[in-house]
């Protein structure tokens, strides 16, 4: 009994070591060499499914030439601002990129161009109500993050905008829901009444 418990504990420890051997990239190791602007003004509220965001990004020329020789692809993402991460552990910011949950919504994936590139994106209907900023990650040929750029400052306090999500409710759903509920109550009452009547009738016979 004790031996098998030891074995279990040992195997857990071993596998956790094995995981940590896969050193994955960290956010703090990335170069902030992309300049990125997004169209929403600070504090603007966008409606999901209707409003557009235009994102423009380019390589920051103040960095030495050749820094971007390894850049292959760019992924632009919609990211949660700190206020929308509060009390929501599933949106937590972690330095280890594999575990980071800040940016959960993809806007576009493009090949990297040193000149300016841009995209106009309609806010999709599954984007939740929250406060956001835009960030672009740059990947090398091995699909590993090497650089980034974002529309807010390092503290993620400036230039944030909001999205107002769709409710997901529909009048037709509400009506169907009400109908079935009424049916349930009425059929229960109906059965009860009918059986009571039958019982009284058989009593009187």
């Amino acid at each position, binding site marked *: 009994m004790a031996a098998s418990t030891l074995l*279990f504990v040992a*195997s*857990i420890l071993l*596998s*956790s070591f094995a*995981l940590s051997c896969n050193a994955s990239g960290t956010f703090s190791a990335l170069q902030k060499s992309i300049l990125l602007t997004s169209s929403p003004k600070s504090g603007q509220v966008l409606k999901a499914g209707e409003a557009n965001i235009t994102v423009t990004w380019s390589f920051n020329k103040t960095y030495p030439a050749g820094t971007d020789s390894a850049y292959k692809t760019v992924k632009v993402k919609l990211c949660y601002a700190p206020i929308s991460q*509060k*009390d*929501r*552990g*599933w949106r937590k910011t972690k330095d280890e990129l594999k575990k980071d949950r800040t940016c959960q919504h993809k806007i576009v994936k493009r090949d990297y161009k040193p000149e300016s590139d841009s995209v106009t994106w309609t806010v999709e*209907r*599954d984007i*939740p*109500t*929250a406060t956001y900023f835009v960030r672009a990650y740059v990947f090398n040929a091995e699909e590993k993050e090497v650089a980034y750029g974002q529309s807010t400052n390092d503290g993620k306090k400036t230039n944030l905008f909001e999205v107002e*999500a*769709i*409710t*997901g*409710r*529909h009048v037709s*759903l*509400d009506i*169907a*829901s*009400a109908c*079935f*509920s009424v*049916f*349930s*109550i009425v*059929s*229960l009452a109906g*059965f*009860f009444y009918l*059986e*009571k009547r*039958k*019982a009284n009738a*058989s*009593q009187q016979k």
Partner: protein
Amino acid sequence: MGDTPGSSMHGVTGREPVLSFAVASPMVPTDTTAKFDLPVDSEHKAKVFKLFSLANPHMRTFHLSWISFFTCFVSTFAAAPLVPIIRDNLNLTKGDVGNAGVASVSGSIFSRLVMGAVCDLLGPRYGCAFVIMLTAPTVFCMSFVSDASGYIAVRFMIGFSLATFVTCQYWMSTMFNGKIIGTVNGTAAGWGNMGGGATQLIMPVLYSVIQNVGATPFTAWRIAFFIPGWLHVIMGILVLTLGQDLPDGNLGALQKTGNVSKDKFSKVFWYAVTNYRTWIFVLLYGYSMGVELSTDNVIAEYFFDRFDLKLQTAGIIAATFGMANLVARPFGGYASDMAARRFGMRGRLWTLWILQTLGGIFCILLGRANSLPIAVTMMIIFSVGAQAACGATFGIIPFISRRSLGIISGMTGAGGNFGSGLTQLLFFTSSSISTATGLTYMGIMIVACTMPVTLVHFPQWGSMFLPPSRDIVKGSEENYYVSEWTEEEKQKGMHQGSVKFAENSRSERGRRVASAPTPPNATPDHV
């Protein structure tokens, strides 16, 4: 024998001493004049439990009953695997998600206690139909919900439907003989509890099908809730049209004056609450059934977040937790019975302690597991431990009291829900504790709260560490069970049932039965 058919709360239990699927004559004589598909006793209760039959009324009742209970488990925990979508749609915080989980198990604490009285007055058929059809609108209400408070309120109301546990057990007791009622009730309860696992599979699948048909995520999950709602209505109608309260017909039609217990409620209640063992088992069940309910609420979201799984994959893993009930709960009862054959009640107590503590240890390991395969393995062993402990608990409950069995069973059941609410509030609602840490703390609490079982002592059988009393009178089963009646009540002969029960319970001595000395006042006066 003196029991009126379907007397109050009789049989509201998971297990009685003999694990059997059939009672042979002449142990219980068969009524040969009755024309039923199964052999029946003098009250027309079935003596045989034929699992794959739909024979009216006994087996049909069994299937209607457990499927209704299963349906209510499905709808109570239907939100759990969809929380990753719901939390985005309704802008929930971790606190909101946790509070909704607490709410989902709290409603039934109250509704289960009320349901006993409802079954007495209206019969189990209407009790079941009422609960299931009146909670159907609450399930449909999920389509209206637009914020955290609405979400919590609706989950609270859906949770009332778990009162079908009581109708299920009560209805079984009107249909099946006392010697097999343990197996019948244990199977019905276990299969009903499986609903908490099945829902983790069903809801994500429904959600993705509805999405593929064209709905957006925030609408698709609302539509998905219509299916459990329809199940409520369908089962309610089936129960009303195909079911009957008693083997011979329905309550109203038979003109019985209601199944009111001949005993006084205040007395029965008194003997339940003044027996310290009741409270120990209320606590214990909160950490076997309670943690099972809590885990049903948090495990899918946990796997989704921690291991980055798709919603359906997380649902499948979460489902295996609840589905283990198919065999784990009956296994616990079986293990308890096997231990009792050799070691009597002490064996049952040790079995319970071992199973529940093992469950707790593997819960701790589940919280600490960093890789998916290990987490799943720890979860499965944890589920078997916790659910088998539930089965083993009801292997002991019938022996705590004969007079107050119904109330003690009801209180224990309520304790399960209370433990679940408390655990979710402590460990799964605050943002400062991650779910993984919450699971570890829950495991530690399980181990700690299982310790009190060492204090349960029966003078006639002993406890985990102490032997039974050597005193001829105090160490007899009769003395223990008859002490619940006053002299006045004994004069009226009200204690006869307890005397008979005491005789039958001698099997809890284990191998020592043959050598038990006969107490001086043992011979009952047969009326």
